[in-house]
């Protein structure tokens, strides 16, 4: 009887692993296709798409697409721009959104619920609807720099960073997480005479690892992977272009698919690396908040 039970368990385990492996393969196929294709000449890449060879590094394999991709576009510059914009935005976003959430959750002030509702309501407004007014706005804004006051933020990093620092989803994530923190800790700190900022810095933030990871990953994915329309309309010089706008360099009349795949592989490296670094915290946070990206 015990033998049968162990056998059943083994079978169930095998079936589960087989299913999970299959699901993992389905999710990995696009990435494998992208990487493998980046080493193939166009003719072979296209003919392989009708068979499993599309996922295998077989045939005429070389780095030619990578050499050509680097000749076609300043990939390093685009990646540097995207990484700089992403990292700066994420850091400022975590700071400002967590401060805002702290205020909404722990401080007593008139109208906070109304304001929080208004902020959350902005989640339903698609960016496309405010893109043009925002463009007109930023094109007239002043900026105090080393050379005095300049007018207009176009063709700068700041125009790609500042409008994206605070967003409703990140505030919401922090609000939800802070609400679940034990109130007793905060009250004890207040009794001991701690200032609100000290409570934020010494108690709340050190306990917020999972939500910090979630907010950082969601925000960085958005900033790195999805920033297309906004930089397209506010950045006209190549020096400030991010990777997603740079992808357009590869879509000529005759598309060089191998180079496209090489470019996509290269620009995916920072994102995949960042995700691998943060995945444990990310998964635990997703499990606890129920938020999906």
């Amino acid at each position: 009887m015990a033998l049968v039970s162990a056998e059943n368990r083994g079978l169930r385990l095998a079936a589960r692993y087989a299913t999970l492996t299959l699901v993992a393969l389905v999710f990995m196929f696009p990435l494998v296709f992208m990487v493998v294709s980046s080493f193939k000449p166009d003719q072979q890449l296209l003919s392989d798409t009708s068979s499993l060879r599309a996922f295998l590094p077989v045939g005429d394999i070389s780095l030619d697409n990578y050499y050509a991709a680097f000749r076609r576009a300043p990939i390093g510059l685009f990646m540097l721009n995207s990484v700089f914009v992403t990292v700066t935005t994420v850091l400022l976003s975590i700071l400002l959104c967590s401060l805002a959430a702290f205020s909404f959750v722990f401080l007593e002030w008139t109208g906070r619920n109304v304001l929080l509702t208004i902020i959350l309501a902005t989640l339903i407004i698609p960016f496309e609807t405010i893109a043009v007014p925002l463009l007109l706005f930023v094109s007239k804004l002043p900026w105090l720099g080393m050379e005095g006051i300049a007018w207009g933020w176009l063709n700068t990093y700041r125009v790609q960073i500042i409008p994206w620092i605070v967003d409703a989803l990140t505030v919401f994530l922090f609000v939800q997480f802070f609400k679940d923190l034990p109130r007793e800790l905060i009250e004890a700190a207040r009794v001991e005479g701690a200032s609100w900022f000290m409570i934020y810095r010494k108690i709340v933030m050190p306990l917020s690892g999972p939500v910090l990871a979630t907010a950082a990953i969601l925000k960085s994915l958005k900033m790195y992977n999805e920033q297309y329309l906004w930089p397209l309309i506010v950045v006209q010089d190549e020096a400030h272009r991010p990777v997603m706008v740079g992808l357009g360099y590869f879509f000529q009349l005759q598309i060089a698919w191998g180079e496209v795949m090489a470019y996509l592989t290269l620009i995916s490296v920072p994102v995949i690396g960042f995700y691998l670094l943060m995945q444990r915290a990310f998964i635990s946070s997703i499990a606890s908040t129920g938020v999906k990206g």
Partner: protein
Amino acid sequence: MKLKTATFGVLAASTMLAGAASAQTTLGLWYHGAGNEVESRILNGIIDDFNAAQSDWSVTVESFPQESYNDSVVAAALAGNLPCILDVDGPVMPNWAWAGYMVPLPISEDALAGHLDATIGRWDGQVYSVGLWDAAVSLYARQSTLDELGLRTPTLASPWSGEEFMAALGAAKASGKYDYALDLGMAWTGEWYPYAFSPFLQSFGGDIVDRSTYKSAEGTLNGDAGIAFAEWWQSLFTEGYSPGTSQDPADRDSGFINGKYAFAWNGNWAAAATLDAGVDDVVFLPAPDFGNGSTIGAASWQFGVSSSCSHPEGAAAFVEFALQDKYLAEFSDGIGLIPSTKEAAAMTERYAEGGPLAVYFDLSKEQALVRPVTPGYVVAAKVFEKALADIANGADPADTLDAAVDEIDRDIENNQGYGH
């Protein structure tokens, strides 16, 4: 003493040089060719030559990816951030001129003498833009295929009639040698549809809008000729002559070369690649004549002046400089497009008399019909594209064209007739 004299000399020389450099007024130029190495190299060469050839103007270029170029220009126009010289796609120019993004190009008609008509962008009676090249489409076929199927080889003077064309497709289909008789390039989207397919509609006797007034598409797009075109169009897919909108882009790129298709409706930009791929007996045939002549689309990228430009005369000087035959020929050899003058064509490898692509110059010269010259074209083109895709996918031809006409007319009305 010698040292002092030398130092003074160097200082004086550098001051003069700086003076000369600063005397040049900088003119920004936006170009659609980011990512195209050859195009960028040639354009940069022209700019360097221009900047060195005179002391008044200094042109600087900023290149954009083609697929997002128009959006970038419109956004910059809204933000008041346009450069002096704009690169503009021919059929889009009237919209930008009407919207106030562009002003007339102060260039003499003499400078334009001998240029293909379609390379000169005219709107409201004035020249707004000039192109260094044109593009053309043709029917790709192998001479061996024509011979094998017993088909007459059509010529510019005597293109296939609609009946001959359909008989050719029928013969190719009946041979059983091809996946499809005709590759229309349905895998390509966007401007390809109105550019490549509206000439068929025009040959049937219809058009996207009524060119006599530009105030409506009623009766022009959905009249008898339009419906006859749409029914013919749908039959290409229902009768299995052509792959539909789900065509694999890879097949579009290489299907004709690999022998999957007997005929392909494609542009001159793909001709060199076809020859290079070893299709030695490829012939580039004129569009079939469905009763109202054989026509092809025309007008490609052109240079014009933005309304933000303080020095239109500087912009015109640059455009005139760039129109030299040697540059037209260089662009043609580099990127395969049709040079805009006969003299430049004679200087090229492919378009010179007897060259493998010489027929394209004649096609452009004889059969080119620019797309409707109206600011409303940018909307009408998208409506037309959707209608053709829907009909190809089985929508009722007459109903679809009626809906398209409603949408085009509504847009014209919403924009107070676009100034017509």
